[in-house]
């Protein structure tokens, strides 16, 4: 499936506007997140899971962003979903992409997003005793951290 076909099929399947470009940005509701990833992998052929991260839009809630690629046909998809304000739950992509495992652990570590159905959701970079999630805008960077700070 080339880029134009992918754009048309994504737009018709998920009923959203998909702008052309590299990568194509697809934004869906959180309840269709895993379905979108499965569609991107199995129908569009995006077998390469590039990265997954999040954006903190303060009072507008968190946004989960993932990039997947079809390296054979040169199709890049930027998958986005906007969580409601105050919601920290999101569907996990690990049933679809095994590479999402550590990315989601990092995302949980830094943003505190709880990925449902994740097999091993715990901190990956910071210690297990760390309090808070540092990449949230509400995190105070000068939080005392005895005995070193």
């Amino acid at each position, binding site marked *: 499936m080339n880029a134009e076909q992918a754009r048309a099929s994504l737009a018709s399947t998920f009923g959203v506007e998909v702008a052309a470009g590299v990568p194509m940005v697809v934004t869906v509701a959180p309840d269709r997140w895993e379905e979108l990833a499965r569609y991107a992998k199995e129908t569009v052929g995006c077998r390469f899971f590039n990265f997954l991260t999040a954006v903190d839009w303060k009072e507008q809630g968190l946004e989960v962003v993932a990039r997947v690629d079809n390296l054979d046909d040169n199709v890049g998809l930027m998958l986005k979903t906007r969580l409601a304000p105050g919601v920290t*739950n999101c569907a996990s992509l690990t049933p679809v992409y095994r590479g999402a495992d550590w990315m989601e652990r990092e995302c949980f570590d830094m943003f505190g997003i*709880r990925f449902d159905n994740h097999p091993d*959701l*715990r901190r990956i970079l*910071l*210690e297990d005793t760390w309090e808070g999630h540092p990449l949230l805008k509400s995190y105070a*960077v000068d939080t005392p*951290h005895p*005995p070193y*700070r």
Partner: protein
Amino acid sequence: MALNDPPVPVIPAPIWRNFKELQEWEALHKTRPEGDKHSALFESVTEGIHNFPGGFVVTTAADAFLNWARKSSVWPVTFGLACCAIEMMATFCSRFDVERLGMVPWASPRHSDLMIVSGTVTIKMAPMLLRIYDQMPDPKWAVSMGSCANSGGPFRHGYHVVKGVDRVIPVDVYVPGCPPPPESLLNGLLLLQEQISHFKKTGRRAPPNVKVD
């Protein structure tokens, strides 16, 4: 179980001090055993000579000789943390050649006298840094190299950075720069040698600085 709060398994961090043998080992090496007759005899003899009329000439001459020996064979442990380590390696290499000052970069803390903290110290790295410092035999010195090790530098307001390595270990010489060129580090090492030549016979060090923001 609430839906928005799934259980997050908490695995206790491995703390090396929890190991019983290591703990006993540390205690053994931090305190002087009761039956250590040689050290006690040496101290009493030194004190006796020092208190004898004119005996201070002997003890100060002995101190000067020992300090000359100490400062002429400062072996830094290779402890590169970040980009400052590149400049440290350049200092060790042939163009700047600290080996003419008696400094041999050594890959074991057991044989080393100096720790050059070259780079950003993160909160996760600080216990390991302290452990390596504890493994070095007394007398030992520490050089804080670069802005990050001095004060946290450009990462001072990061969430994970120790704001100066002097909160973890006592530091003798601070070398500024980001990163300091080899000339700066060489100057810092010469200052350290100057400092060692005034070193007293006790190997005791001040506790780390307690700083409050």
